[in-house]
């Protein structure tokens, strides 16, 4: 794999990592993430950049025991979708026992290296977790 960046996506991860996450909202209030030039739902090109809400809520999750090679050392791990206002993020849930993850749990989003490759991964933590 080359070291080239993914413009738009990488800037988003860097912002999320420093606590300044954002999302795009179109004129019809659809939320989406960069890189985007048009809303995938309605085609609107008027995308406003708004701050990502500090906490989100898990809407579904799975505990992965058979990973892709890029996550060999991470498994088993929990991948979840969490809603932050009008936008959802997909990330790995850390700082909680997989058996204790539930729909409705409040989480914060940050960026951490995966245990296998060290690649930056969107990571959720329980919203009441004060540890790094």
């Amino acid at each position: 794999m080359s070291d080239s960046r993914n413009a738009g996506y990488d800037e988003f991860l860097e912002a999320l990592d420093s606590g300044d996450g954002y999302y795009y909202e179109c004129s019809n209030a659809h939320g989406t993430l960069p890189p985007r030039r048009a809303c995938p739902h309605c085609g609107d090109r008027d995308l406003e950049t708004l701050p990502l809400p500090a906490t989100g809520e898990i809407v579904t999750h799975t505990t992965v025991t058979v990973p892709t090679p890029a996550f060999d050392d991470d498994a088993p791990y929990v991948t979840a979708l969490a809603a932050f206002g009008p936008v959802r993020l997909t990330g790995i849930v850390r700082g909680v026992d997989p058996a204790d993850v539930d729909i409705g749990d409040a989480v914060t989003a940050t960026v951490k290296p995966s245990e296998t490759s060290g690649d930056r991964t969107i990571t959720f933590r329980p919203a009441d977790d004060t540890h790094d």
Partner: protein
Amino acid sequence: MTKAFIAGSGTTAFGSFPDRTGRDMFAEAGLAALDDAGLTSADVDEVFYGNFVGTLSERQGHQGPLVAEALGTTAPARRVESACASSGVAIRDAVRAVRAGDADVVVAGGMERMSNMGTAGATDGLARAADDLFEVRAGVTFPAAYALLARAYFDAYGGDRTDLAHVAVKNHENALVNDHAHLRQEITVDDVLEAPEIAAPLGLYDACPISDGAAAVVLCSPSYAAEHGLDSGVAITGSGHGGDTMALQDRQSLAKTPGTREAAEAAYDDAGITPDEVGIAEVHDCFTIAEVLALEGLGLYSYGEALGAARRGETRRDGALPVNLSGGLKAKGHPVGATGAAQIAAVRTLLEGTHPQSDAVDDDVTVGLAHNAGGTVASATVHVLEVVA
């Protein structure tokens, strides 16, 4: 609506054949389809070929002409890639070509070779059907994506893994008499529930196997079929193609698959039928939950109602609406790029009375459905097949 006549069909056995080349598997299926139609390579106007991970598994791009050549022709050919819906989309494009009068005889089908990649390699390859930036990099595997849908479905409508287990048991049972099936093994609900988890709430027996194989059909335009006496048997009378966002995080609902609904409505409208006329269906059950989502998306069940269909016996071979009589992806196997074409071949032979499970099709059934899905249904095709004899 204009019919696309199915003059012939052919499939390889589905299973683990790591040493078989893709070109040879597709040649076996395609030549069998031509033989079945009583046509030769020289009759073929175009080739529509579905394949998903061939550039990874065989390090081979530009597979369209390669597989046409394997059929003994240099007719114009293309490879269609729409993940697990690759050959469903190839069939649809072929249907449009013969209906438009652009071609009289086409071979449409697909092939996948995956077992040579090993489980880790195939898991990595299959994950490429998800959004690389926002899903794969967050640990989403193909089973994980469907597990996320399953959990959301349970949350929306209730139900649990036991309901899903009945889908696996049914499809394994259907495959027992299918000598082309990958898994011919009777299983119980307990077997499913006790199998190792792969992506909770889904376990190993909720998932289709990693299969190799090929499938093809020969389609003819109405005028060619009439001229050559091929205008009997079974025809494709309706075709639909639906879409959705790639990543689950952008979906409006995580308990429904609107791509299937869009494809189904278009196909029903095209064929001039209603869902209650459908007598048998082959649907995309890459995971047990996928069969449930498919039956609801197709309008054969209301949302939230299909989860118990297999448990209640309604979709078993002796039920009111037999689903996946071939064994489905779950037990027949899922050579990804071949699946959509294999479903068409199965529905056609079920309706014609030449499939090992044809005795489960009531005499008054004349309409069958084939539903093929790619990714988490960001691509879906639905085809209506009808007896025209």
